[in-house]
């Protein structure tokens, strides 16, 4: 069997019933992925909203608690995620141009960045644990500043752990998905015409990066200089 007929066979078997052609099928898949990501956006949006409301209500306590964040790890992790988004975008672009082996390379680098992010996050959590900053587990918070309350500082850390924890869970799922894409790309499943899974996992990965782009300033930055 010649190469062209083999590619043609793959091309055909990937086209599902209701669709006219692979382009239409891909556009539908992309639209579906965006709708899913919007439900994710509303879920994180609710958490961001409660953070903003409680920060307004318990301003002095949230300010003090926020200064216990490790700004260096936060900034480095932001850079790591941006780099992972670049390699993901280049990987998707390679899939679109039908370069399967290059997809494997870029996905592997993306995985590496993703694991680096989680490792740094784990170090950060470990430091919080040792500083007794985990709510419900012998939480301690000493501050001489006026209007600072232990309970309200604990609320900041509760929101911090829920938001970054949910984000880290998404990172774990993303790493699982990218591993799956890497294996399928290695087996040569994707062609110039069919690569919906690569594009949709890419969208998911960029979305998780997007959430961090807002988490970083809100949790680590905006309370630094307030007086």
């Amino acid at each position, binding site marked *: 069997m010649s190469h062209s007929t083999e590619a043609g066979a793959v091309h055909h078997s990937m086209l599902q019933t209701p669709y006219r052609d692979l*382009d239409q099928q*891909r*556009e539908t898949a*992309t*639209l579906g992925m*965006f*709708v899913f*990501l*919007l439900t994710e*956006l*509303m879920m994180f*949006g*609710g958490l*961001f*909203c409660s953070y*903003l*409301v409680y920060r*307004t*209500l318990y301003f002095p306590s949230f300010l003090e608690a926020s200064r216990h964040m490790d*700004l260096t790890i936060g*900034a480095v992790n*932001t*850079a790591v995620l*941006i*780099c992972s*988004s*670049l390699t*993901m*975008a*280049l990987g998707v*672009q390679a899939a*679109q*141009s039908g370069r399967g082996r290059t997809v494997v390379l870029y996905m592997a680098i993306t995985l590496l960045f993703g694991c680096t992010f989680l490792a740094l996050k784990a170090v950060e959590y470990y430091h919080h644990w040792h500083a007794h900053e985990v709510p419900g587990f012998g939480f301690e918070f000493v501050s001489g500043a006026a209007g600072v309350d232990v309970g309200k500082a604990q609320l900041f850390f509760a929101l911090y752990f829920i938001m970054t924890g949910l984000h880290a869970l998404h990172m774990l799922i993303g790493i699982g998905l990218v591993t799956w894409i890497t294996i399928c790309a290695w087996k040569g499943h994707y062609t110039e015409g069919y690569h919906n899974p690569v594009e949709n996992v*890419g*969208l998911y990965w*960029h*979305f998780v*990066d*997007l959430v961090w*782009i*807002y988490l*970083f*300033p*809100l949790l*680590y*930055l*905006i309370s*630094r*200089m*307030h*007086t």
Partner: protein
Amino acid sequence: MAEHVVPKKIYYAVWATLMAMTLVTTLVAFVDLGRFNTVVALAIATFKASLVVLFFMGAKYTPRLTRVVIICGIFFLALLLAFSMVDYLTRLWPA
């Protein structure tokens, strides 16, 4: 409609801008701007997020239907945040 393949140099340019903006937002956090620290940080975050959505997620190159869906989602998030904040911020006002 055939798929639009974005040239690599656009991705590199977006990446460089995102990295530069991360550096800027981190440095600005050490300058006391009062209330405007929050405004500047969120403005930079929104600029970065727009770049990610438009170029990395390819929203700029998707069909109009997909773009309408994305804008709807952002609109409802804005609604959630705006109405909640208007409520809580005005509660603190003296009667």
